[in-house]
């Protein structure tokens, strides 16, 4: 029936990613809920940290990535929430789709949504916090590698909690500690890119890349048992 091997996995991933993105285009949950939430948090940080006091400006890279992480949790909830309804997970198991294919497809869709969100948030932060963007190349490197890692870890844990009743409270508890090194690395890399820190920025990109590669691989391997039994 379906083509086996790598072509099969890629084809499956493309099918699933297409479905997820089409779902987002129809339901617009990311656009109408996650993005406003992220912008809201940016606003709230300004209230909490008082823009006049320079703290906000100094903390911008960290705050930015915090907002990205929180939004990512919501995005993962949404991505796997639809699979958890209506016994869709059963249908996925019955279909000929390979588990790594499903995983990579969902990760790809998450990445697209997260990158779009990060882009809009960057503009928001530049406007509202008065951040001067510089070091575009390094920023792009940091953002891309960090997003791969966030999406991969999110995709794995999303699959793990898909059938758990208390998944809304459980997912952040599981995902955020795992993403701690991503937060650290992305923030430091961003600080270097924005010229606030002297140190080399690219080693952080390297570390983020390793994180992403590791969790992409591990997630793809674990997705089959998770889809089956979790």
């Amino acid at each position, binding site marked *: 029936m379906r083509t086996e091997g790598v072509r099969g996995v890629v084809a499956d991933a493309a099918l699933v990613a297409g479905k997820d993105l089409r779902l987002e285009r129809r339901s617009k949950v990311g656009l109408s809920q996650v993005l406003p939430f992220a912008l809201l948090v940016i606003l709230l940080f300004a209230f909490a940290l008082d823009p006049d006091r320079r703290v906000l400006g100094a903390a911008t890279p960290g705050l930015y990535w915090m907002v990205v992480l929180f939004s990512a949790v919501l995005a993962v909830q949404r991505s796997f929430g639809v699979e958890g309804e209506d016994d869709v997970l059963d249908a996925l198991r019955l279909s000929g789709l390979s588990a790594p294919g499903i995983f990579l497809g969902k990760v790809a869709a998450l990445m697209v949504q997260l990158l779009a969100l990060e882009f809009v948030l960057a503009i928001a932060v530049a406007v509202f916090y008065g951040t001067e963007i510089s070091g575009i190349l390094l920023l792009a490197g940091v953002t891309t590698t960090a997003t791969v890692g966030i999406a991969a870890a999110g995709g794995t844990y999303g699959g793990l909690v898909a059938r758990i009743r208390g998944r809304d409270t459980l997912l952040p508890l599981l995902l955020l500690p795992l993403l701690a*090194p991503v937060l650290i690395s992305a923030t*430091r890399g961003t600080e270097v890119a924005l010229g606030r*820190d002297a140190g080399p920025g690219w080693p952080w990109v390297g570390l983020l890349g390793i994180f992403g590669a590791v969790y992409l691989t591990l997630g793809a391997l674990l997705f089959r048992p998770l889809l089956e039994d*979790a």
Partner: protein
Amino acid sequence: MTTTTTQAASDRRVAPTSTSSTATRVLGISSLVGLALLVIFGVFVSPPDAELGQTIRILYMHVPTVSVAYLAFLITAVGSAMYLWKRTEFWDLLAASAAEIGVVFFGLTILNGMLWGKITWGVFWRWEPRLTTTAVLLLTYLGYLAVRAIPADPRTRATRSAAIGLLAVVNIPIVHKAVDWWRGLHQERTIFGTTKPEIQGTQAFAAYLGLAVFLLLFAWLLIHRFRVAFLAERAAESGLGAAIAERRQEASESSATAVSHSEGDR
């Protein structure tokens, strides 16, 4: 009669009344003796450090607790991988037992780190690499325990836990690297000032003794915890034969009504 693999397994096992055995008694007693020796050597006999003063004594506990915690999580990782491969209960229970103990030892590590901090820096917490890393990893493994606590059938629970066990262990070196670089940027020295305090003579002896004692303690705890978990599983599944008989009994009850009623109702 229907026989199931699980029922056969229950038939094979002997019903123990406690989780102790000769092995655990030996381990337990040697741990106690070892702890006593450690206190003597660590607190009284060995001299204070030239640089760190009396606070070096916390090293004799701090290094063992963190080492044992890492060993525990390594066991959890191995158990998780083996479970996903072999799908036998032994690996699942081993992984879970080790994780629980690991969390406890991480907690102890943070506590004695905070104690050292209070004495040396005057504050309970500083964002120095070791404490920070331990805090992150502690939260990670608390997540493992949280998932473990969710009611589910054994295979589901084991699969979820095994996945987390592997995802978490792989994160350990990455967290270390990130935190070390980060705090290193701020010239934040490790908890003991230098990365490896120079220790000699009785100090070295106390340090190694501490490690040995805590390893014994860990083994003792692990064996007991594993056995408790094993017995819990046996207790939970011991009713399977009865459950099957009861299930089939439903048939006679419902057949009696089925003869006289139509089955169109929902």
